[in-house]
């Protein structure tokens, strides 16, 4: 096993990795940008090195500087966390050249899964189900029409060079297909200078369900069941849980086996996640494979009892992983929420700044993977996630109850957060029932907008608390300056005194 590991990341994930390192008696090396001099991950590490200015490209993305620090500190391995360099094959290769172990998959697996159309072809070859669709752009409207008929409606026509919804059409009715096809081509041509479009099946009310896998260098590949990450806002996951509340057990087993197949197809090593869309008929389709540890990995850790970072370290050190498929089971139910510094009432604008008070709930079945504490600052340069917060309980219902209790106790002052929005996510009917799909956030937003203000008693109590707060603080200030409240706070008496003196 390693004796010293560098973490090429910041914030909560850097701390999460360092915690396991410390438990295993491995020294940790932090890197940080000039903006992160006072950051918690720097303080938590055993050693810390500044790698450049605030902008990520000048610091956390500087492969040369990070490798220099690895050499200087004598770190034997680098954990990339998620984001930044975690899925950068160039970095994985540079580590190998520098003689440092990259804690992640081999560069060729990152490349294979990073190129989406290539990955899709490889998955088809490995008999992994993918969303039915054309592999190449199609020009002839009649041929496209015939293809749509063969996969069944609704279908999605999308621009090859696409993005931002341009050149994209959902078609439900065959009679409108030709018209939509020509429209999408025109739009694609004017938006991207390229009229090429694909046709694929539109998955109705899909759930985003993903399978965690682990693979070691001894040929062992296991899956650690699923996570349901269907609560997404602008493609950003907000709430994640395991097990998926609607997944049938036979489908779960099949998905797990398919995920293992996908990992084997690219000679995968390390921790990875195979993402699928699950439709209302419990048919599932490969989306992509993330070749790194994911933000929502604690959900899996809570239900399986496996420390994924520890397994990553073992695998990177060339040891076999310490679990077999037969050892693994899902126990109870875990839910994670991402606490962000953003204002849900103001279009989710990020709200960087200093946290004047941070109080994190505790109790049985509760875990907080945070990156901040009272007095630390959420920087505008990086992702505004304050923490990922996870609960575990015997049943889903109890887990929701526990999480609601905790969200009520969770306190972040000085900046705005999405805590109230998270409560709304848990309370909306489709979530409570477990049947929610990736469109659920619009329902959560609608519920928020429809909500009346505070109830009368709460409004009254808030007013009393605020008034008392002002009163007690002015009394406290007065006591601190050694004067009675009447002389410090009563401008008129002071005025009177000045007049007397000035006479």
């Amino acid at each position, binding site marked *: 096993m390693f004796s010293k590991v560098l973490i090429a990341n910041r914030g909560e994930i850097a701390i999460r990795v360092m915690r396991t390192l410390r438990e295993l008696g491995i020294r940790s090396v932090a890197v940080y940008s000039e903006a992160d001099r006072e950051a918690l991950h720097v303080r938590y590490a055993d050693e810390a090195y500044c790698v450049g200015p605030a902008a990520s490209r000048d610091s956390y993305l500087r492969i040369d500087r990070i490798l220099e620090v690895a050499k200087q500190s004598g770190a034997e391995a680098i954990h990339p966390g998620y984001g930044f360099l975690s899925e950068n094959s160039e970095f994985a290769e540079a580590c190998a050249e520098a003689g440092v172990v990259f804690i992640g998959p081999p560069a060729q697996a990152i490349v294979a899964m990073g190129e989406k159309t290539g990955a899709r072809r490889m998955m088809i070859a490995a008999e992994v189900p993918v969303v039915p669709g054309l592999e190449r752009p199609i020009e002839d409207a009649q041929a496209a029409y015939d293809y749509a008929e063969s996969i069944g409606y609704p279908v999605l026509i999308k621009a090859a060079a696409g993005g931002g919804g341009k050149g994209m059409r959902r078609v439900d009715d065959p009679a409108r297909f030709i018209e939509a096809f020509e429209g999408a081509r025109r739009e694609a041509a004017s938006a991207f200078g390229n009229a090429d479009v694909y046709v694929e099946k539109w998955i109705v009310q899909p759930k985003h369900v993903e399978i965690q896998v682990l693979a070691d260098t001894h040929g062992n590949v296991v899956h650690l069941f699923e996570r349901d990450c269907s609560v997404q806002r602008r493609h950003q996951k907000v709430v994640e849980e395991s097990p998926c509340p609607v997944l049938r057990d036979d489908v779960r087993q099949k998905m797990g086996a398919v995920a293992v197949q996908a990992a084997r197809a690219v000679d995968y090593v390390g921790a990875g996640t195979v993402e699928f869309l699950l439709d209302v008929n419990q048919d599932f389709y490969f989306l992509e494979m993330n070749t790194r540890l994911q933000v929502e990995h604690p959900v899996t850790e809570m239900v399986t009892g496996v420390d994924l970072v520890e397994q990553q370290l073992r695998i990177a050190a060339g040891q076999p992983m310490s679990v077999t498929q037969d050892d693994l089971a899902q126990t109870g139910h875990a839910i994670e929420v991402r606490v962000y510094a953003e204002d849900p009432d*103001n*279009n989710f*604008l*990020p*709200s*960087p700044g200093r946290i*004047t*008070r941070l*109080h994190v709930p505790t109790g049985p079945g509760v875990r907080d993977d945070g990156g901040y504490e009272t007095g630390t600052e959420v920087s*505008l*340069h*990086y*992702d*505004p996630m304050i923490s990922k917060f996870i609960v575990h309980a015997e049943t889903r219902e109890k887990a929701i109850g526990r999480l609601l209790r905790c969200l*009520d106790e969770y*306190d972040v*002052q*000085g900046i705005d957060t999405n805590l*109230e929005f998270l409560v709304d996510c848990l309370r909306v009917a489709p979530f409570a029932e477990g049947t929610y799909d990736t469109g659920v956030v619009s329902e959560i937003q609608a519920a928020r907008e429809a*909500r009346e*203000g*505070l*109830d009368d008693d*709460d*409004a*009254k*109590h*808030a*007013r*009393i*608390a*605020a*008034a*008392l*707060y*002002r*009163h*007690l*603080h*002015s*009394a*406290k*200030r*007065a006591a601190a300056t050694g004067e*009675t*409240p*009447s002389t410090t*706070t*009563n*401008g*008129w*008496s002071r005025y009177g005194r000045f007049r007397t003196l000035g006479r």
Partner: protein
Amino acid sequence: MAGSAPWAGEGEPMTTTKLVEITGDKDEPTRDIAVEALGDGRYAVTIGDETTEVEGHLVDGGVALRIGALSRDLRVDDRGDALLVRTPSGRARLELVDARTYALQAALGQGAGALKPELVSPMAGKVVLTPVSAGDEVTEGTTLVIVEAMKMENEIRAVADVRIKDVRVAPGDLVNPGDVLVVFDVEE
């Protein structure tokens, strides 16, 4: 902040704090609130013409209240101009100012509720785009400025139909919360 205080027996100050709540409500723009210390950690809080007797003290992060037997631990996030109080049914944003300060400001014409003729940046970030120019008549919802912060673009939109008098920032500018982005032509 606080008001007159004759000393009441046993050396305990019997002070009263008079406050004005800026409600932002058209029909009732302000509301008078008074806190009178009754001794032994008890207070009479008068909101409008309703008085409630409570026990209370400051705690880490807020105020602990007892109203009769009802116990309420309320978090108060002090943002300077406003107090954000968390309750079970949501967060209350309360602007409570000292009554005398309020009277003074009102006299100087700086009272609350005046239309703000400027759009200020709600956050720190970099200006990406300013799609409007001086003289433009824009409708509610029009994007005025796009500010990038934390790798996300944020569109700041007009909250009413208005004429643009001046655009004070250009793409590439770094802005802080409170910096003026756009000046509106608001009739006096």
